[in-house]
C-alpha cells in the first residue's frame, strides 16, 4: 500500500468514526453511574460490523490487520464523545494477548468472537496498584493432569462488567500462564468498584478454578512478553483517547470563551484567559505530535525497550495534558463548569480514569527514567 493510499484510507476511517460519533448522546454517559450499562451490546455489534473491533486482528482471523496508527484514529474519535464501550481494553489490550497466543484453536475462537462482537474478553493481568511490571504475579496456577487449578485475585480489570470471560495471568512451576476463564466458571467471582466516570473496575477472585488444557492461551516467557507488549500498545491507544478528550474539552471551552459575556464583553477577550487557552492549546498540539511519533515507532515493531520507552512518552504527555486541559476547562467555565449539567465535568472524569489506567504520568516517567536514564548513567 503506497503512502498516498494509506492517507486516503485513514481519512475515510476518520470520517466514518466522526459520522458514528455524531449519533452519540452524552446523556448515556451522564447516567452511567446509575445504569451501569457501559457496554451496549447492540452498539458493540455495530462497531464490530464497521470493523473497528478487528482493526488490529490479523486478516486470517477475520480482522483488518491494520496498524496502531489506524486504531488510534478510531479510539480518538470515539473518545471525543466519551463512548464508554471497552474498545481499548478489548480490541487492543486483550486482542494483542490473544493474537500472540500459542494455542491455535483457542486463539481462533477468541479472535473470531472478538471481531464479530459476540465474545467480549477482558485481560486480568494486574494485582497491585501503581505497577507496570507484568512478570510479578501472585496468582498461582497449580498443574494437574488435565490443566491447571488457579487461585488468586486480579484487580482493576477494565471492561469486565460485560465481559464473557477473562484472560488471567498466573504463576506456575512452569512459568507464567495465560488462561482463559469464561464468565460463571465455578470458583470465579467478579466484584466491582465504580470508577469516577461511572464505569466499573472489576476485581476477579479465583478460588480453585479449574482451567482445562484447551483453555491455556500461552505460557512462559512468551506469555509475559505478550502482556508487556499489550500494555504498551494499550497505553498508546489510551493516549489517543486522551487526545480526543482534551481536544473536545478545549473546543467546548473555546466556544464558551467566545460567547460568555462579563464586564460587557466576551471573556475570551481578556488576556489572562487568552494566554491560558493558548498554553492549553500548546499542550494539546504537543500531545498530538508526540503520539504521532510514538505510533510510528510502535508500528515498526521495535525491541521491547524501545517500545516501552515510546509508550511511556505518549502516556506521560497525553495524561498530563488531558488532566490539565480538562481541569482548566472547569476553571474557565466558572461555577457552571462544576455542575453536573455541564459537559466539561464528564470530560474531566474520563480523563482521570484513563490517566490512572495502565500507568499514570508519574508511573510512566519513573519507568522511562529506569530504562532510558538510570541504566545508562552508571550510578
Amino acid at each position, binding site marked *: 500500500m503506497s503512502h498516498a493510499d494509506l492517507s486516503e484510507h485513514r481519512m475515510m476511517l476518520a470520517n466514518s468514526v466522526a459520522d458514528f460519533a455524531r449519533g452519540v448522546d452524552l446523556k448515556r454517559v451522564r447516567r452511567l453511574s446509575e445504569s451501569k450499562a457501559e457496554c451496549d451490546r447492540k452498539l458493540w455489534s455495530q462497531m464490530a460490523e464497521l470493523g473497528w473491533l478487528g482493526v488490529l486482528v490479523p486478516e486470517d482471523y477475520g480482522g483488518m490487520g491494520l496498524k496502531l496508527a489506524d486504531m488510534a484514529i478510531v479510539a480518538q474519535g470515539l473518545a471525543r464523545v466519551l463512548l464508554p464501550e471497552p474498545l481499548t481494553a478489548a480490541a487492543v489490550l486483550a486482542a494483542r494477548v490473544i493474537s500472540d497466543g500459542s494455542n491455535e484453536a483457542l486463539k481462533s475462537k477468541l479472535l473470531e468472537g472478538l471481531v464479530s462482537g459476540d465474545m467480549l474478553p477482558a485481560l486480568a493481568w494486574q494485582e497491585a496498584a501503581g505497577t507496570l511490571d507484568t512478570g510479578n504475579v501472585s496468582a498461582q496456577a497449580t498443574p494437574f493432569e488435565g490443566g491447571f487449578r488457579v487461585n488468586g485475585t486480579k484487580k482493576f480489570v477494565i471492561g469486565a462488567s460485560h465481559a464473557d470471560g477473562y484472560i488471567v495471568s498466573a504463576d506456575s512451576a512452569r512459568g507464567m500462564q495465560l488462561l482463559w476463564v469464561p464468565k460463571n466458571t465455578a470458583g470465579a467471582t467478579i466484584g466491582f468498584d465504580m470508577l469516577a466516570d461511572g464505569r466499573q473496575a472489576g476485581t476477579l477472585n479465583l478460588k480453585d478454578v479449574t482451567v482445562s488444557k484447551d483453555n491455556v492461551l500461552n505460557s512462559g516467557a512468551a506469555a509475559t512478553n505478550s502482556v508487556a507488549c499489550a500494555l504498551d500498545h494499550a497505553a498508546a491507544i489510551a493516549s489517543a483517547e486522551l487526545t480526543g478528550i482534551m481536544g473536545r474539552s478545549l473546543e467546548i471551552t473555546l466556544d464558551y470563551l467566545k460567547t460568555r459575556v462579563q464586564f460587557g464583553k*466576551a471573556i475570551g477577550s481578556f488576556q489572562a484567559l487568552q494566554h491560558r487557552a493558548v498554553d492549553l492549546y500548546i499542550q494539546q498540539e504537543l500531545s498530538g505530535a508526540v503520539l504521532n511519533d510514538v505510533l510510528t515507532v510502535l508500528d515498526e515493531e521495535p525491541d521491547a525497550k524501545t517500545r516501552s520507552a515510546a509508550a511511556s512518552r505518549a502516556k506521560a504527555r497525553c495524561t498530563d495534558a488531558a488532566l490539565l486541559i480538562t481541569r482548566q476547562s472547569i476553571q474557565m467555565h466558572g461555577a457552571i463548569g462544576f455542575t453536573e449539567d455541564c459537559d466539561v465535568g464528564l470530560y474531566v472524569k474520563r480523563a482521570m480514569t484513563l490517566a490512572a489506567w495502565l500507568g499514570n504520568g508519574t508511573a510512566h516517567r*519513573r519507568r522511562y527514567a529506569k530504562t532510558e536514564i538510570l541504566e545508562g548513567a552508571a*550510578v
Partner: protein
Amino acid sequence: MSATAQQIDYNAMSDEDFRKQAREFFENEYPDELRFMPRRLSWEESKPWWLTLSKKGWLAPNWPVANGGMGLDPAKLIIYWEETERAGIGRMPDQGVTMVGPTLIRFGNDEQRAKYLPKILSGDNVWCQGYSEPNAGSDLASLRTEAVLEGDHYVINGSKIWTSMAHNATNIYVLVRTDKAVKQQRGISFLLVDMKTPGITLRTIKNIAGGEEFCQVFFDNVRTHKDNLVGKPNEGWTIAKGLLTYERLNIGSPRRPLQAFEQLDPLARELGLFNDQGFVDRYTQLKMDLNDLGSLYQRYVDKVRNGEALGPDISMLKVFAMDTYQRLAELLLEAGAEYGALADEITLGGKKIDLMTPFYTSRPGTIYGGSNEIQRNILSKYVLQLPN
C-alpha cells in the same frame, strides 16, 4: 562565488548523497574550537568560515542559484540545517544571508540585488537589523524613527535599540515611519543604510552576562538614497512580517537546549544526583519535554520538507522551546548547588562544566524575536480566534 558551485544541481542528488557531502564538508572544514559554542560567534571569529562557505558556494543555501545561493529545495535545505546542527556550527552574524538576501530576492529590485547580494557573499558587507526602538519593543508597529523624502534622499531621525552586533556591521536595514497620517502598520517603510553614513552614532549596551552584543543606533539627519527603499513606500510592515516564520522554526530547534543538557549529565554524575529521586524526577520530566519538543519541531520540519507554508501556529514552537530551555538552564544551576553560584566555568572530576552560560543564553530567548507573551497573543488571535 565559484563557477563550479553554480553548476551543481544539489536538488538532483539523492538525499543520502547530499547529506554525506554536507557532513564531510562540515566535519572536515569547520574549525573544531568553534564547535558547539554556547553563544553566538563574533564577526572576527566567523569570518574564516564565512569565506570558506562562500568559496564553496554554500553560504546561502536558501537563495536561488542565480543569486549565488545553493537553490536548495525544502527537503535539501532541511538536510543542510540538520547537518550544521550535527556538526555544532556556530551562529554567525548572518542577518545578510538569512534576512537581507531573502528580502531583496523577494521584494527588492535588480539594481539592489546586484549591488548588495555579492557583497554579502564576499563578506564585505555585514548586516544588522534595526527594528526595535526604546519605545517600540513588543509594540513594534508604534515605532517612531522617521524618514522624510527630501529630493533623492530619505532623511532619517530617531534611534534603534537591541541591535545585535551593530558594532560589527557595515550596513543596517531599518523599519522607519514614512507616513504618520495612516494606521500605524500602514505607514512603515523598509530602508537600507550604510553604517558609515554621517549622522549615525552607536552606543554599546552591556547585558547582564557582561557581553556587549547589543547596541543602540542613533540617526541624526542620516541621508540614504531613495534607491535604498525596498518595495514600495509604506509596505515595510508586510515585508518584515513575511520573513519571520523561518526564523521561528530555527529558534524552535531542540539543538540549544540539548547542548545545555549535555552539561547536566556530567554534573549530576559527579555530585551523585542520580541517587536522588527528587532530582531524577525533575531530570526525567525535562528530558521527556525535550524529546517532545523534538516531536513538535519535526512536525514543522516535515511541513517545510513537503513544501507546505508555515502558518502563525508555529509561534507555539518558540514558546515551548524557550520555556523548556530556560527550565533546563535553571535545573542546571539548582543541581550545581554552591557551584551554581559561581560566575565562571567550573572543573569537576577533571571535566569542565559551564553552568552559568546556558542560563544567560536562554534568558533572553523568551524576549527576542517577539516575546513569548506576544507569541501567545498571536496564537490567541490568529489560531484560536479569540475575540479582541
